[in-house]
C-alpha cells in the first residue's frame, strides 16, 4: 500500500499543473492548429480543409512584420543585457544588507499594469510631453522632432517593460557566486578586469541565458508597445495577429501567423540553447 502510494505521489503532485496546462495550453494549441488549416469566413463558417494557404499567404503578406518583430525583440534584449547586467551586478555585490530593498524598488513599477505603464511612457514621450516639451521650448531640439511612432520608442518600451525578467535571473546567478572564488582569482594574479571576464562573467552566463529567454520571447511577440508607442511603420507581428483575430476575424490567417511565430521562436531558442547553453562557452572562457 505504501509502495503504491509512493509510486503514485509524483503523479498526484503533477496532476493539478498538468491539468491546467492541458486545458489552457494543449487544447487551445490544438484548436489553433486546426483553425490555421481551415478555410471559410465568419459568416459562412469554417471547415477543415488542410488549407496551407493561410501559412503561405500569411508569411508572404506579413514577412516584414515578422522580421521587424525579431529585430525589435533582439534589440530590446541586447539593451536589457547592457542595462540590466550592471543593475544586477550592483545589487548582488554592492547591495549589502539592503539587497531586498533594491530588488523591491526594481519591481515597484511592475505592480502597475503592463498597459498602464506603457501608456504612461506614451505621455512621457509625447511630442509636447514631459521630455520633449521643455526641450523644445528651450530650443534644444527642433519643433518637429518626435520620439513616439518611431522604432526607438517601441524598442525602448519593450526593453523597459521586460527589464526585471532580465535583471532577476542575472542577479540570482551573481548572488550565488562565492566571494571566496573572486578572492581566489585575485590571489592568482587576476586584476579586476580579468576577474570579471574569467570568473564573474562566465558564472553569470546561466542567468543571462535565462534572462534572454524570458525577455526575447515575450518582447518579440508583444503588440502593446507597438500599438501604444509605435506608428504605422512600427507594426509588429503581434499587432497583425491581433488585427486578424479581432478586426478582420480571419481566424485561419491569425492562427497560421501565430504558429509561424511560435515555430520561429522555438527554432531560435533551440539554436540559441545549443550555441550558448552548453559547456563549450565556459570552456572557452576558462582560458
Amino acid at each position, binding site marked *: 500500500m505504501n509502495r503504491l502510494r509512493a509510486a503514485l505521489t509524483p503523479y498526484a503532485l503533477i496532476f493539478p499543473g498538468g491539468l491546467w496546462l492541458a486545458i489552457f495550453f494543449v487544447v487551445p494549441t490544438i484548436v489553433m492548429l486546426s483553425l490555421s488549416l481551415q478555410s471559410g469566413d465568419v459568416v459562412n463558417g469554417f471547415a477543415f480543409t488542410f488549407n496551407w494557404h493561410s501559412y503561405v499567404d500569411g508569411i508572404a503578406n506579413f514577412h516584414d512584420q515578422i522580421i521587424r518583430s525579431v529585430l525589435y525583440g533582439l534589440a530590446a534584449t541586447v539593451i536589457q543585457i547592457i542595462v540590466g547586467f550592471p543593475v544586477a551586478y550592483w545589487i548582488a555585490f554592492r547591495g549589502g544588507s539592503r539587497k531586498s530593498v533594491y530588488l523591491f524598488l526594481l519591481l515597484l513599477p511592475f505592480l502597475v499594469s503592463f498597459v498602464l505603464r506603457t501608456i504612461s511612457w506614451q505621455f512621457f514621450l509625447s511630442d509636447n510631453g514631459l521630455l520633449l516639451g521643455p526641450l523644445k521650448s528651450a530650443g534644444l531640439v527642433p519643433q518637429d522632432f518626435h520620439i513616439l511612432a518611431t522604432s526607438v520608442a517601441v524598442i525602448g518600451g519593450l526593453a523597459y517593460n521586460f527589464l526585471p525578467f532580465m535583471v532577476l535571473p542575472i542577479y540570482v546567478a551573481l548572488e550565488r557566486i562565492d566571494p571566496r*572564488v573572486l578572492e581566489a582569482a585575485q590571489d*592568482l594574479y587576476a*586584476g579586476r578586469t580579468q576577474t570579471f571576464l574569467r570568473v564573474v562573467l562566465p558564472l553569470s552566463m546561466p542567468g543571462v541565458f535565462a534572462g534572454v529567454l524570458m525577455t526575447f520571447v515575450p518582447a518579440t511577440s508583444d503588440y502593446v508597445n507597438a500599438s501604444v508607442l509605435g506608428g504605422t511603420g512600427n507594426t509588429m507581428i503581434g499587432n497583425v495577429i491581433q488585427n486578424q483575430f479581432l478586426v478582420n476575424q480571419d481566424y485561419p490567417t491569425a492562427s497560421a501567423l501565430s504558429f509561424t511565430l511560435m515555430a520561429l521562436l522555438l527554432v531560435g531558442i533551440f539554436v540559441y540553447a545549443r550555441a550558448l547553453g552548453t559547456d563549450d562557452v565556459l570552456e572557452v572562457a576558462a582560458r
Partner: protein
Amino acid sequence: MTEIQAGAGAAVEAAPVSQDVPAIELDNVVKEYVSHGEVVRAVKGVSLAITEGEFFSLLGPSGCGKTTSMRMIAGFEDPTGGVVRLHGEDVTSVPPNKRDVNMVFQSYALFPHMNVWDNVAFGLRRRKVPDAEIRRRVGEILEVVDLVGREKRRPKEMSGGQQQRVALARALVNRPRALLLDEPLGALDLKLRQAMQIELKRIQREVGITFVYVTHDQGEALTMSDRIAVMNDGLVEQLAEPREIYERPSTKFVAGFIGTSNLLSGAVQTVSGDTAVLALGPSDRIVIPVDGTVSAGDTVDLTVRPEKITITKEQPAGDLSVVRGTVSEVVYLGTYNSYLVVLADGAEITVFEQNAHDSTITAERGDTVWLSWQPRHSYELR
C-alpha cells in the same frame, strides 16, 4: 601518491632569497572593523617573523584573529595599523594579485566553471607564462598531488579530498614565495585529515616553500609545524616550537588551549634561589622553578600536565611536589586511565596513568590519594 620528480622538485624551487630576511613579517599589525556602529578590534597588534622554508602555524580558537592575520598577509584585508613585509619588502598596500604569495582557501574556492587543468593553470595564464611551460608545470604539479588522469573533471565531480588537492596544486604551481593555508583540512573527515596532514608536510618538505597554516586544531598544528603562534583575542600568546608550546606553555590561555592542563594557584611560602615552595593544603608542598621576580607571600598560577603526575596511595618520598586529594572520577581509556582528583581547596586535577603494566587501577572513586611530580614539570604562568 607519486614521489615528486627530480625535475619537478627543482621546478618548484622559489627564486634564491636571503636567509637573513624573514619570508613574512608582521610588524605591530592592527585590524579594526566597524560592525553595527561599533569598532571591533580583530587583531590588536601582532608582530611575528616567519623564516624562509618554515612550516608556521597560527593556532587559536575562532575569532582569535588568526584568519584576519593571514588575510592581511595575502592582501585581502588592509591593516588598520602596522606593516606587512614579504622578504623585507613593504607590501602593506600592495593588492593581492600583485603579491607573490598564494592561498589555499578553507572551502577551496575552486572555479566551478573550470575543469581541474584550467583551475590549476589559472595563475600561470594570468602571468602570461608560455603555453609549453604551463603544460609542463601543470602536469608536474598534478603528479605531485596525484591527480593525473583527472584533468578534465569539474570540481563538483570530485571528492572533498580531491578538491583539496586541486586547491593545493592551483596555488603551488605558481611557485609562490609562501603558501597560505586557511584551515584547509577542516571540511575533511578524520581519516582523510590525518592522511592529508602527513601529505602536506611531505609536499612542504619537497617544494621547500614557506607554509603559513591557520588552524584551530591543536593536534594538526603540533603534528605539522616547525613553529606555532598561539593566538587569542587578537594577540599572540606564545610563539615557539610545538614541543615547547606543549611542555612549557607560557600563559594560562596556552596551557588551557593546548592539550589537557591542570591549573593551580597558591601562595608562595619560601623562595630559595631559583625555586619557590607553595602550600595549598596542610599536607601539600609544591616546588616550582621561578625566575627571581617572585617573593614570599605572592600568589602564583602554575600548570602541570596530567601525564607528568604519579598517583599513589602512600605518601611518596623524595624531593617531589606533592598534593593530597580524593578521587572523584576514574575513566578507563584503553592506553591509559584518567583520574579526576579533588584537592582540599576544591581544585580539580586530572591525572593520566599509563596502562604499562597490569590493567589494575591504582585507586577507586572516593579513595584518598597522593599526587606527585618532578618540580621541573610544573611552570609558573603569567
